[in-house]
């Protein structure tokens, strides 16, 4: 979230699309309800009429995987009716930048496409620069090659007729929603988006979010109270695990994982540190070396010296151009490339797309360690459906771990709040906190390296790893290390600091080895003032629900990021009733501002040379309406899901995203477009009563009582067509697998008219698995395809093709 949960209550218009907040984030509705009570409009756009839709002022369906068409139509509506927030667009976004004449877009392809590699040469998407190397700007937005005019050209193609034909959404609904949402383009109005996996789990996942970000920028909804682009994270600490580099491509704090071509620390820092020639651009990532060196100091302590590149050579590198995402890992595992696997707090036999492939992949391992609270389909894969235990070589170890309330530590919620939790009870039996398991494991491994040497022992033997107290994992020591220390007596920014004290905030981190920080974004979370994540002051001084002394949030306790865009160029809030920050003439008051520099204009309307542009994380200082960094194009463009019910894409002759890559094992079967064997669009989702693959909730009798079995929701016409009655058992089948489910025949799903034909859609929750309960059904991911977004490789589990039949017919 750029904003935070409480802030939803400040909104004038809430669009819930790509998420089902009432069901999957029930507490969020406390704030949605609050906003509605104050007069906000709630819009729900979803293939199904959900519990969220039941509360909405406006509901409309769309076909899964057509969100860009829907949103592209909204961009067109905003531009052609001149409903955008002109001053904001002209000065805070890159709409005023001028593109070089190499940029073009033709029939679904952007300039620079290489059909052999199925990738783009992004140098075709560059900005024209002046003699000083600064992007040229036209604040009148009239230059034919400026981003604004190109945006207009691009989305003029998204007419109501075309959008409706693609999405299946009635035209009058589109218009009503466009009009309602676009009304937040007024300076004192704010619209917000609550999205989740309904937008990300597509082959155009990243561009779905980009499309909405463009809308929010056109309407001036970024940085303001009640606005923002708000990802509702699917687990209580998924934000924290991402921040601390759960994913392969990053180090903590979104630093890059080194590529093999980054042979030295200097080469690595040079490669990943963006530069700017514009004196008005803060280019915050210019501080990159301070964060990377401080991180290496946290990893290797005194062993990290300037002479040895602070231990940079000990860190793992990934091959250039190679992806190591979830889908890639399981592909390698399936092809027998792995010997061992730790499935830690996860259940890939049910959670991963194309789950049959994952289950078969586990059988190719020598060993598998399953760390979990309950037995699950991953640890027990060898005795699952279709498996012959006698023929499986994998040795499985099960390590029971403590649950969240049985250990101390922090979680970071969707609103970036790091919240400290105390231990409520002791773990049951011999269950241990994950930290203790890791410490014990690491110490054994280090002992073996010490005794036996082995290949490349230095990284393990040089790790600082002093996180224990009395031999046990100590969460406070880890939290302090994440914050970082001064490693010698130093003077920074005119202030003296003693060796061994905690760094006050990331502005004090250094690239010379004098500071450490396990994650620069969290520097300030646990400093000499104490454990800020544990703060519990329930007083809100802001008047807009920032609650700045309750827990702590990254970065530097800034509750609404990009808040420098919430004010005009003089520093006055666009919305005077809900100010996030305000310039008093000498300083900012309110939330922690995105940098303390003065506003862009002085009192007499002249450019203040001391100012910086508001979007400080971008080298150009302007929010990117034109996004030249993505794999699949600088503007979002509608492409059909890999498996789709239509023979052609009405927007271009590119049926699918031209940059996606398919896996090629025998387990990777994909539906060919319009295959009559798989005529129905399928989507997967969650329900309130269960969590993820249900490992935690299926064993909870009260929750299981509410949602005992896998179900398949379908519309009444489809049910009639297939002779299916409500509560009948049905078989749902895709090219990859099949599941048995209970039919819920409902008015809440309707057939959609798409490109002149009727399209039926069905949906299944993915909470169930064969281990328990025995009559609960198996994972809906046995159906979903292993294909991912070209930027993130998140699998396309929200739109694929299946068949549905009545069981026994």
């Amino acid at each position, binding site marked *: 979230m750029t904003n935070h949960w409480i802030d939803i209550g400040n909104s004038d218009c809430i669009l819930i699309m790509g998420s089902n907040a*009432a*069901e999957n984030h*029930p*507490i969020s*509705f*406390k704030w949605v*309800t609050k906003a509605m009570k104050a007069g906000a409009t709630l819009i729900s756009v979803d293939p199904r*009429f959900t*519990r*969220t*839709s*039941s*509360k909405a002022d406006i*509901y409309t369906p769309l076909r899964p995987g057509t969100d860009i068409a829907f949103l592209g139509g909204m961009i067109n509506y905003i531009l052609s009716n001149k409903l955008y927030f002109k001053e904001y667009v002209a000065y805070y976004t890159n709409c005023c930048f001028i593109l070089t004449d190499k940029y073009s877009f033709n029939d679904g392809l952007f300039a620079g496409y290489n059909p052999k590699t199925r990738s783009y040469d992004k140098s075709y998407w560059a900005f024209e620069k002046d003699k000083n190397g600064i992007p040229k700007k036209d604040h009148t937005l009239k230059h034919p090659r400026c981003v604004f005019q190109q945006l207009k050209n691009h989305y003029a193609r998204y007419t109501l007729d075309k959008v409706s034909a693609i999405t299946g959404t009635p035209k009058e609904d589109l218009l009503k929603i466009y009009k309602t949402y676009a009304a937040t383009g007024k300076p004192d109005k704010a619209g917000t988006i609550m999205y989740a996996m309904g937008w990300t789990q597509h082959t155009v996942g990243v561009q779905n979010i980009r499309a909405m970000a463009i809308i929010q920028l056109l309407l001036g909804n970024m940085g303001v109270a009640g606005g923002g682009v708000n990802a509702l994270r699917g687990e209580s600490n998924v934000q924290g695990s991402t921040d601390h580099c759960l994913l392969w491509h990053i180090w903590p704090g979104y630093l890059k994982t080194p590529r093999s071509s980054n042979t030295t620390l200097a080469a690595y820092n040079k490669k990943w540190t963006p530069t700017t020639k514009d004196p008005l651009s803060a280019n915050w990532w210019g501080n990159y070396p301070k964060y990377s060196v401080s991180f290496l100091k946290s990893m290797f302590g005194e062993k990290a010296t300037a002479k040895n590149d602070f231990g940079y050579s000990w860190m793992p590198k990934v091959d250039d151009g190679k992806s190591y995402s979830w889908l890639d890992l399981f592909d390698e595992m399936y092809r027998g490339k792995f010997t061992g696997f730790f499935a830690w707090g996860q259940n890939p036999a049910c959670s991963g797309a194309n789950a049959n492939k994952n289950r078969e992949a586990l059988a190719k391992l020598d060993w598998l360690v399953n760390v979990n609270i309950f037995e699950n389909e991953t640890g027990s894969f060898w005795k699952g459906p279709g498996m012959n235990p006698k023929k499986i070589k994998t040795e499985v170890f099960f390590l029971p771990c403590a649950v969240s309330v049985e250990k101390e530590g922090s979680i970071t919620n969707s609103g970036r709040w790091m919240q400290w939790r105390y231990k409520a009870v002791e773990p049951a039996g011999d269950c241990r906190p994950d930290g203790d398991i890791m410490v014990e494991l690491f110490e054994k491994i280090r002992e073996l390296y010490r005794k036996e040497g082995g290949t490349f022992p230095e990284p393990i033997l040089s790790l600082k790893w002093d996180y224990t107290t009395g031999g046990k994992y100590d969460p406070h020591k880890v939290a302090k290390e994440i914050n970082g220390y001064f490693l010698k007596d130093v003077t920074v920014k005119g202030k003296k600091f003693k060796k061994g004290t905690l760094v006050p905030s990331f502005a004090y981190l250094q690239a010379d080895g004098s500071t450490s920080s396990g994650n620069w974004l969290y520097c300030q979370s646990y400093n000499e003032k104490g454990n800020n994540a544990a703060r519990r002051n329930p007083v809100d001084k802001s008047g807009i629900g920032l609650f700045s002394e309750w827990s702590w949030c990254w970065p530097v306790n800034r509750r609404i990021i990009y808040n420098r865009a919430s004010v005009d160029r003089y520093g006055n809030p666009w919305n005077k009733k809900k100010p996030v920050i305000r310039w008093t003439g000498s300083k900012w008051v309110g939330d922690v501002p995105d940098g303390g520099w003065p506003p862009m204009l002085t009192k007499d309307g002249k450019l203040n040379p001391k100012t910086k542009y508001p979007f400080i994380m971008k080298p150009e200082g302007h929010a990117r309406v034109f996004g030249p960094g993505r794999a699949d194009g600088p503007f979002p463009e509608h492409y059909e899901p890999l498996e789709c019910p239509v023979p052609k894409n009405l927007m271009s002759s590119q049926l699918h995203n031209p940059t996606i890559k398919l896996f090629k094992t025998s387990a990777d079967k994909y539906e060919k477009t319009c295959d009559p064997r798989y005529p129905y669009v399928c989507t997967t989702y969650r*329900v*309130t*009563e269960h969590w993820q693959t249900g490992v935690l909730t299926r064993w909870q*009798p*009260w*929750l*299981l*009582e*509410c*949602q*005992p*079995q*896998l*179900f398949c929701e379908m519309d009444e016409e489809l049910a009639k067509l297939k002779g299916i009655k*409500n*509560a009948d058992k049905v078989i749902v089948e895709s090219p990859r697998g099949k599941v048995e489910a*209970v*039919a*819920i*025949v*409902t*008015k*809440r799903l*309707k057939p959609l008219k798409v490109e002149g034909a009727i399209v039926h859609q069905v949906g299944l929750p993915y909470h169930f698995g064969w281990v328990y309960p025995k*009559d609960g059904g198996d994972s809906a991911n046995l159906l979903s395809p292993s294909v991912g977004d070209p930027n993130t490789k998140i699998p396309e589990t929200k739109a694929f093709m299946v068949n549905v039949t009545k069981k026994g017919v």
Partner: protein
Amino acid sequence: MAGKSFFIDTTRCTACRGCQIACKNWNQNKASKTKNWGSYQNPKDLDGNTFKLVRFSEAEVNGKIRWYFFPDQCRHCLEPPCKDTIEGYVDGAVIHDKATGAVFYTEKTKKAPYEEVKDSCPYNIPRKAASGRLVKCTMCLDRVSAGLLPACVKTCPTGAMNFGDRDKMLALAKKRLAELKKKYPKAQLLDADSVRTIYLVIDDPQKYHKFAVASSESGLIDRKLAMKKMLRPARNLLKAGITG
């Protein structure tokens, strides 16, 4: 009429079922083995272990789909007919708490005729537990007496479940009704004058639940009840005679 009341604003209910589970948790009521019967609603009905049940129903109004949620529970009637029925058989089996107005079934309800008690309730609430005791929502009398909110109200994230002094709840309900009337002409409070669990709905109550308002057969039951009430002194005399 003082005491306490619930105000249940169904327009704010998201059917998260936090209330249903919180009720089970506080009362330590077991889960039954259920099957999906083509609905999210589960268990299918109130039972000996389920005092609170969120009912789901779909309706189409002017071509627009609506999904209604009805967190069903005992209404704690101001004049509870179940109490009369039960006490026609067992004295002191039902406590009608003076301070709150809660209608509380004691252990003695084991001796009351279940079907007759159930039929006498215009909202079809009482159920028989495995122990033989008749059971239903207790208004969390133990919690409320200790100054806490009922478990279902405490857990509700949206403000659908409200609880407090009856006059305050009635005022809240009337205020909310007035707001909703503008958009939903059929908005109404259900039997607000005779119950302590006041529902606000925006459509015909029958679309939410067959027993959302006092059932039409209740007239008949009333007559049966009236007969029992009339006969009660004589029967009590008779019982006294036997035991004495």
